[in-house]
């Protein structure tokens, strides 16, 4: 995917969210660190471009909820911030790549500590398959069939120099 593919995909997702929530009423977009955060911001902008709605955006660092902490070094935790009460709202979790589902599982656990949303939906830019948990996305930018040995990297202008989605063999330089 290149930059315009990404833009089109996000626009389509923004429309789907708006349709299914009757004008994005009561929706909170929650980006999962790192690249879910700029994607959530872009979805808000996209929704705002065709709807009289300014959807609140929150951010979530799921570092403290991972089930694989022992295998990962302590890194600095990013900001978790939810600007509105999520009780009885529709939370749309936003992430770049859906793979095993473990990140989403951790994000659901984290959300549960902040309240009881009316519904939680999942929007991802890329679904690459190979789920290890019973989790499926509600909004998908692109289904990208991959082999387990491959790696998918999403680059966004906000966090990286260039923009696009690439598939690599593991160990290959990006």
């Amino acid at each position, binding site marked *: 995917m290149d930059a315009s593919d990404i833009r089109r995909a996000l626009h389509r997702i923004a429309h789907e969210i708006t349709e299914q929530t009757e004008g994005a009423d009561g929706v909170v977009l929650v980006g999962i660190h790192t690249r879910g955060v700029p994607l959530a911001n872009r979805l808000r902008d996209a929704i705002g471009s065709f709807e009289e709605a300014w959807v609140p955006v929150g951010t979530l660092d799921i570092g*403290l*909820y991972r089930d694989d*902490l*022992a295998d990962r*070094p302590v890194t*600095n935790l990013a900001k978790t*911030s939810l600007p509105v009460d999520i009780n009885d709202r529709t939370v749309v979790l936003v992430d770049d790549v859906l793979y095993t589902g473990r990140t989403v599982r951790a994000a659901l656990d*984290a959300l549960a*500590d*902040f309240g009881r949303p009316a519904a939680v939906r999942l929007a991802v830019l890329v679904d690459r398959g190979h789920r290890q948990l019973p989790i499926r996305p509600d909004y998908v930018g692109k289904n990208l069939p991959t082999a387990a040995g491959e790696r998918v990297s999403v680059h966004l202008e906000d966090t990286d120099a260039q923009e696009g989605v690439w598939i690599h063999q593991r160990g290959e330089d990006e």
Partner: protein
Amino acid sequence: MSFLGIEGHDRADLEVILDLADEFTEVLNRPIPRVPALQGKTVAHVFYESSTRTRLSFERAAKALSADVMNFAPGGSSVSKGESLKDTVLTLKAMGPDLMVVRHGSAGAPTRVAAWTGLPVVNAGDGAHQHPTQAMLDSLTIRRRFGKLDNLRIGIVGDIRHSRVARSNVAAFTTLGADVVLVAPRTLLPVDSREWPVTLSESLDEVIGDLDVVYLLRIQAERGGASVFPSLPEYVSRFGLTNRRFAAMNPEAVVMHPGPMNRGIEIADSVADDERALVLDQVANGVAARMAVLFWLLGGERSG
């Protein structure tokens, strides 16, 4: 890896802990102030000195990270039957904790516990040696108030000679860039200050106007003080943070105290209740700072 003292940790280490503590402050403000980061881990609290507030703070920190907690205090235990510290901690280790939090009246005891057990150990205060989590919560409190410690002037006032809080705080504050002045009568200043990166003063009045933080230590009033200064009234008149001295402080400056306070001795009653007295912020930050230390030691594998 253990957290036995501030010494041996550089500025980067301390800042990682403070950054984590900032995030944990946010966690503690959530509707459900608990994260599963240390689920399945067990923290043993081994407190040879009774200290309800420090133990509760550690316990709150461990539980907010979803760790399980074992509490050990020597009263009524095998210690009263003469069991040695070594046998006690090896016995506790056999029950499978992942980390020990140790408070002991003897300097260096946590260091011995770490050597005997091979477990990560957090020093929760040892004799007059170190109390490093106190230093982290104090640093956190100052950083949250002023944004940073660099070039702040911090005065530590009171019984510095016998204070583990002073030793840890001097190390932490100076590592983080602050200038520290120790203020006390000669008998309570370090007996030999060559290794202390500080300046010394025997007059609170001379320095009070220059300080950003006035950090008061508890005077061991129950010991009477008779052997280290002539009388409590004399101490108060020279080193107490009275209303007059509080008024002489820089208007932005704050007052800190590790607790428990002796109102009317090292701190005037109304000063203790002023909004510029951060005593309760320190207590609140203590939970986040201890969460940060526990997570730093147990939340993942690090080389070294």
